[in-house]
């Protein structure tokens, strides 16, 4: 009997390969988008059912030792699929050109790559899915064929190739040291036999994944790529492929404690590395976001800052694996990944709509938006308040868990820094809200808000508020996934 996960993977693969053929059908420009949306929705439901049914490794026999279908993978697969689905639906309003079957096909490849990555249990499988996910996005980033878009695409492709090379080098070191590409074998090999090379490999993994996770100092491509790429694709990069970096890091990095054992230097521990990265990432992201004049760049820097918050959970985890705080922290990280995907995803989609309708991406375009595009403005308001961590929106709960996990103990300063960063970030979020509702726009004429975008906005806003009021189901599920990692 074929299982749900296999079915979902086969569906997406078939869609990715067959969608370009739809170019042969003239005059049916809308069809590829609808097909992909149905396929992704089906995959979402199938993987959802698969995840809720309590998957065991043996439930995907063909996966062998490469794929490990657990709850954690399920959560990330669902998040990335959900974002891709939202991007696909909103793209109905955007991509009307003749080449759109290719566009949707590339989206399907990316989605497939992200799902496989979420379940990867072997470094080679992880790398292959990493590339399957990344390469289509290089093309997508340049899809609007403007000069700026091309530049973004090239820059993104070069940086992406570099990060792939770094990861591959780390993998080769890991294989040389442990004789295996199985993640669990590599981790136990590194920990039991901590050589200097193992420490180097660990740092290379941090750097390689860090590019996708948008961690400072591996972040410099983010604002340019997000600004230049079509904004729908920026959504995909910020809300989905970035999360793939996090699942890879959770799978590979969290269990490794080599840095400390290699150097015997109590300062150079994994927890300290993550703590410094977290501090620098969130602070630099927020400070830079405050000075931006274009919405996409502001969202890009805010996305960097959010990655810093997510790293706080890593700190709590690697500081005291197996403790109560470790579970709280990892739960917070995974939950924040989910929330960030919704909040940043919908914020980018709203920005994309403003860009499409008003042909402007600078912040001045948002003056008086509350009158011109009331639904978009309300969506942005909810997303921004959620990103700032204002209760009772869903972003509040994940930040609460993250800060709680380090609130007392050696990393108390990190909790303080995170909290001050949150307060600081409200400065620019509230500033945009002020522009939308309190400033006068250049006109008060109503602007059309297309049907599919509004549907996606409504669902996302409903989720942000709904999960905020009733977080128990989601947090409970996430925490059991986190507990299985904590072991």
């Amino acid at each position: 009997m074929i299982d749900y996960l296999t079915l979902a993977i086969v569906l997406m693969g078939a869609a990715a390969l067959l969608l370009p053929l739809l170019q042969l059908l003239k005059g049916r420009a809308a069809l590829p988008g609808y097909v992909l949306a149905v396929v992704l929705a089906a995959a979402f439901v199938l993987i959802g059912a698969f995840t809720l049914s309590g998957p065991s490794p043996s439930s995907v026999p063909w996966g062998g030792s490469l794929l490990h279908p657990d709850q954690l993978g399920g959560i990330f697969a669902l998040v990335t699929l959900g974002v891709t689905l939202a991007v696909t639906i909103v793209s109905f309003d955007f991509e009307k050109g003749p080449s759109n079957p290719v566009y949707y096909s590339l989206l399907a490849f990316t989605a497939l790559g992200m799902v496989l990555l979420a379940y990867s249990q072997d470094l080679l499988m992880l790398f292959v899915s990493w590339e399957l996910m990344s390469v289509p996005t290089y093309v997508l980033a340049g899809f609007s064929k403007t000069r700026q878009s091309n530049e973004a695409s090239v820059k993104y492709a070069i940086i992406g190739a570099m990060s792939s090379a770094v990861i591959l080098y780390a993998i080769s070191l890991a294989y040389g040291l442990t004789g295996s590409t199985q993640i669990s074998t590599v981790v136990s090999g590194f920990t039991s036999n901590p050589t200097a090379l193992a420490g180097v490999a660990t740092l290379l993994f941090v750097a390689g994944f860090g590019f996708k996770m948008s961690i400072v100092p591996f972040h410099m491509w983010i604002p340019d790529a997000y600004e230049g790429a079509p904004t729908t694709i920026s959504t995909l990069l910020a809300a989905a492929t970035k999360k793939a970096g996090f699942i890879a890091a959770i799978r590979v990095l969290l269990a490794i404690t080599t840095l400390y054992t290699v150097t015997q230097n109590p300062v150079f521990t994994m927890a300290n590395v993550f703590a410094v990265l977290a501090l620098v990432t969130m602070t630099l992201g927020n400070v830079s976001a405050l000075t931006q004049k274009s919405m996409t760049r502001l969202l890009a820097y805010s996305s960097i800052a959010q990655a810093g918050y997510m790293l706080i959970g890593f700190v709590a985890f690697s500081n005291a694996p197996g403790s109560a705080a470790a579970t709280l922290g990892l739960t917070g990280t995974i939950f924040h990944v989910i929330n960030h995907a919704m909040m940043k995803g919908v914020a980018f989609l709203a920005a994309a709509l403003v860009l499409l309708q008003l042909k402007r991406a600078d912040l001045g375009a948002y003056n008086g938006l509350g009158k011109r595009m009331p639904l978009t403005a309300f969506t942005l308001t909810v997303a921004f308040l959620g990103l700032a961590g204002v209760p009772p929106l869903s972003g509040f709960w994940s930040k609460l868990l993250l800060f709680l996990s380090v609130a007392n103990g050696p990393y108390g300063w990190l909790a303080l820094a995170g909290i001050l960063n949150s307060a600081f970030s409200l400065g620019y979020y509230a500033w945009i809200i002020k522009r939308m509702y309190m400033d006068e726009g250049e006109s008060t004429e109503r602007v059309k808000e297309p049907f599919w975008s509004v549907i996606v906005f409504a669902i996302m806003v409903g989720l942000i508020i709904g999960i905020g009021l009733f977080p128990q189901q989601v947090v409970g599920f996430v925490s059991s996934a986190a507990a299985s990692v904590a072991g």
Partner: protein
Amino acid sequence: MSYALSLLIALPLLGAPLVYAATRVNRRLGIYASLALSAVVLLVAGYVFWQVYAAAASNSLAPGQYMLQEKYSWISFSNFGLDYFLGADGLSSPLLLVSALLTVLVVVGSRRLIDHHEAEYYSLIFMFEGAIMGVFTSLNLILFYLFWEIVLIPMFFFIGVWGGPRRKYAALKFIIFTFAGSTIMLLGFLYVYLGMIGTPGVSFNIPDLAGKIPVALQYLPLIASFIGFAVKLPLVPFHTWLPDAHVEAPSPISVLLAGVLLKMGGYGFLRISIGLFPNASAQYAWVFLVLGLFSMFYGAAAAILQRDLKKMIAFTSINHMGFVLFGAYATLVSGNLLGIQGAIFQMFTHALAVGSLFMLSGYIQHQAGTREIPLLKGLRTSMPRTAAILVLGSAAAMGLPPFSSFLAEFMVIAAGISASAFTAISILVPVLTAGYFLWMVKRTVLSPAEGEHEAHDMGWSDVAAFAVYLVPLVILIIASYLILTPALPVAQFLRGLA
């Protein structure tokens, strides 16, 4: 189990969209709907107040006990739990009552002063009211924080959309100041919880934590919560957002700001700073006493210098709220229960007295076209009814005997005198307060009128509305037991912790 407290929170929050829809259909319908909704909430608040009073009067309310409790598990997983936990005692019940009363009066007072975006305005008022009710009834720290932050959102829009010329600046300043203060407060709560996570039965519930937090874990959270509450109270030097916010906010919203929002700070000091961190509080009580005293004097001194009537009233709030902090900590030092009882009483009377003055400043600006004290001349002849209310409201605010604010300030000062010889100088504060109010009254009411003023005096219906602010203050000087009896177990409980 009673649902009265949940009703207090849910009625306004769920009613807000209905009010929005009603106002969109028809302006008058919206205002009537708002009136009806706020009146119903007032009835429920009155019921809660009476329940707490009746229990206290029959000596069945033990110190540290909460009435009308509601408790459900909200979030729980492996080692983390949060309850939806509500309760009321002699500290919260007067604040619930006065918040509900002020909401009714604000709805009444807004109908002439607010003339655009009314649907949004009235629905936000109820969002504010629901969140405030949540703040005053939450017995779980995270739930408390949650409502605490929700309060900010309507206030941000109130100031930014319906405010005066510098409204955008004031709105941003308000939200950043108060959000920064409250996130630090939250960090204090998290610190305590994570520090106690191995202890059996640890939770975020205030009754579970009160008296059980180890002294070593009390210092940092005391500082953190102090920052959150000092910004709200506001305590000098955390007060700079307040004059801006008050001056720019429309007058009905100033009533909510001064009458309700500032009380969150006083409530937080009593419930959390003293209630949860009593040992650290007692150890550093003199710091709080000095800060409170400084705020009292500073607020009074700054009020003398103001030319804008509304800004002057804003500074009197700083002066009056200093009494709350001062009284609370005077009890910790001296053991004299009058301090905490007086602080609770002061919060109630300040809400009504200053509420009436803010609303009045709105009327004066609306009718006379200015709020500049030197330009307002001869109100006695040009607007006699307005002038009379202004004199009475000032008398209430400065604590003249027919008004119960006298009793509240008297109690706080009595506790101050029993605390130490130094803190006895608090007796000088009412002199300053009386000074600037009388000077303001002399300049605006008693001065001769200049030229022909076409000022319209307020109608008798408005006079009746103002009576609702001031009459309870007169009644309460006789029936002060209504507030003080339920406040007694609270004071005993807090003193017993330290």
